[in-house]
């Protein structure tokens, strides 16, 4: 890996971290507005450290959901990290002991994407850890500033924070809406959830709407996914 390549990776990692930090600002503020304490909010960012799940947890609690439905929606959103594991393990040469425990903690959307975006294994490993450090630091810094800022604010409704929450989910959803199927699944899930609102306890509609994804996944024809990255072989393999 050339020094130029190394610098480029560091620049990209800093850029991803900055974007995530901005996102964390809104997470911190919305979490406090949803009724969690600043300490609870910080524990989530430090220990759970997977953004979509954190948002789902605090907003379900804020909307009056019970602990089981709040944890359930967070867990379901966090399940995608399971599928990043095999690729990350391969790139990091199957880490053991504390290195594996640490790598697992930071195996999330951003680190996986940055690592998989590299041409060679050494760069991929470097990108993974550089992004991990940058995102972890700025995600937690952003959360802290957002949470402390929100404790100083007046009524969150006055500031439209209750509209900021669904807009944040929409912004997370938008990049996944590529092609007809995701649109259909998203539309059906939204309708199912809204129809259930008057009849089941808060938080449950979201869990049931997840079944739309299960049904669509079981029904549809499995599509060939691009082959997982195999270190330095990738550039030689036609994909």
């Amino acid at each position, binding site marked *: 890996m050339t020094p130029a390549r190394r610098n480029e990776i560091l620049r990209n990692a800093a850029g991803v971290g900055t974007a995530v930090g901005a996102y964390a600002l809104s997470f911190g503020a919305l979490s406090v507005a949803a009724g969690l304490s600043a300490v609870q909010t910080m524990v989530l960012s430090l220990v759970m450290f997977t953004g979509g799940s954190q948002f789902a947890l605090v907003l379900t609690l804020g909307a009056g959901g019970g602990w089981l439905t709040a944890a359930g929606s967070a*867990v379901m959103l966090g399940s995608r990290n399971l599928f990043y594991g095999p690729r990350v393990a391969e790139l990091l040469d199957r880490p053991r002991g504390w290195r594996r425990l640490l790598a697992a903690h930071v195996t999330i959307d951003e680190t996986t994407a940055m690592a998989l975006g590299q041409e060679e294994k050494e760069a991929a490993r470097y990108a993974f850890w550089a992004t991990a450090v940058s995102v972890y630091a700025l995600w937690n810094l952003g959360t802290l500033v957002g949470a402390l800022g929100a404790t100083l604010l007046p009524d969150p409704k006055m500031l*439209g924070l209750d509209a900021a929450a669904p*807009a944040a989910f929409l*912004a997370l959803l938008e990049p996944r809406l590529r092609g007809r199927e995701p649109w259909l699944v*998203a539309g059906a899930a939204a309708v199912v959830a809204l129809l259930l609102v008057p009849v089941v306890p808060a938080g449950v509609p*979201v869990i049931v709407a997840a079944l739309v994804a299960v049904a669509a996944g079981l029904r549809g024809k*499995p599509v060939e996914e691009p082959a997982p990255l195999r270190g330095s072989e990738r550039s030689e393999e036609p994909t």
Partner: protein
Amino acid sequence: MKWLAIGVATVVCYLFKIAGLSLPERWLDNPRIRRIAGLLPVALLAALTAIQTMSSRSTLVVDARLAGVAAGALALLLRAPFLVVVAVAAGTAALIRLL
């Protein structure tokens, strides 16, 4: 109850991460499971967006939030960065409440 939700979800989310790094790859290689895993965030995020926009506890409501989220969606279409999308949504809702 909040701590219970935080504790349970945090532990399970970490178990997913560590399992992904530890299990043999072929265990996760089932194409149907991969498809469901890919569609799950789509369904959950869409449901969360809809619920947070148009419901309050157990009733469906149309209020300033809908206008805020619509403005946020417009900002997304114009390729605005995350923080701008969220700020546009919040600002629009706040403005409508002021009027």
